[in-house]
């Protein structure tokens, strides 16, 4: 199993993601620098980590989405490569257009940093199938721009097609229809604002994230 974590200037969850991937796969992921023009050969799964890539300049995730490595990721994701973006990684994925919508400033204007209960809306997706009958998980959130926005037609389409994977039980940021995580039409690209990679060890306060990584990696 060959995995990769992309490292942007001011990524700050890249090592959390690396620890999570190593814990599940038993192999260290490739840490890939944002100026690289292509992923290492035969990568099975890519994580775009949380953080504040490029200092959140212009818009959160905007500059990262145009970086050389992300161009290669977009090309490969379009052909089916599994990619997940957590927090800033989700913002990057919406900025590339791989996922619809945008993440705006939190409705309450405050940076929200706390454990958040999420409802598993689609437990059949490749990202959640290992949760079985579990209805809720607790992942930490830590963001200022997590307010998910899309037009009504897009929101209806996402819900109808089972592409809303997680919803907040208690919406912390004003996201439309309480949406916390979505996937693309083909089901290989997934983004969420909360941090499953920070919920994989009892010392994190919970281990609900483990099954998410097992779901994704088991599906490859």
């Amino acid at each position: 199993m060959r995995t990769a974590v992309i490292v942007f200037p001011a990524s700050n969850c890249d090592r959390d993601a690396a620890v999570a991937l190593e814990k599940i796969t038993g192999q260290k992921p490739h840490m890939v620098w944002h100026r690289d023009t292509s992923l290492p050969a035969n990568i099975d799964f890519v994580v775009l980590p949380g953080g504040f890539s490029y200092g959140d300049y212009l818009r959160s995730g905007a500059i990262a989405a145009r970086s050389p490595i992300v161009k290669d990721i977009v090309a490969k994701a379009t052909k089916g490569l599994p990619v997940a973006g957590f927090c800033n990684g989700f913002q990057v994925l919406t900025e590339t257009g791989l996922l619809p919508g945008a993440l705006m400033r939190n409705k309450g204007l405050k940076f929200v940093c706390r454990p958040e209960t999420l409802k598993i809306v689609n437990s059949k997706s490749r990202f959640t199938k290992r949760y079985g009958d579990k209805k809720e998980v607790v992942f930490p959130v830590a963001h200022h721009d997590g307010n998910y926005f899309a037009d009504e037609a897009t929101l209806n389409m996402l819900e109808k097609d089972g592409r809303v994977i997680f919803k907040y039980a208690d919406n912390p940021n004003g996201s439309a229809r309480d949406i916390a995580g979505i996937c693309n039409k083909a089901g290989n690209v997934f983004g969420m604002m909360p941090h499953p990679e920070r919920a994989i060890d009892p010392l994190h306060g919970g281990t609900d994230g483990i099954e998410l990584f097992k779901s994704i990696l088991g599906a490859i």
Partner: protein
Amino acid sequence: MKAIIKVGLKPGVLDPQGRAIARGLNDLGYYSVNDARQGKIIELDLSSEDKVEAKKQVEEMCEKLLANTVIESYDIRIED
């Protein structure tokens, strides 16, 4: 040649920062302020010679990077 680009949230998209600004102005006693919208201005220094061509290029830049057209609209002014 200069391009001055105004980027802001589209009408209808909730602007929590704008709303906070309006509330702040109300708190200062400016009760005539009903609402505020906040955006940004980007100035580009261009080496282009042709205004029409420059505007076309800046439009492309807005679509590709400077604005997120899911939530934002933009307005371009080209100056000598």
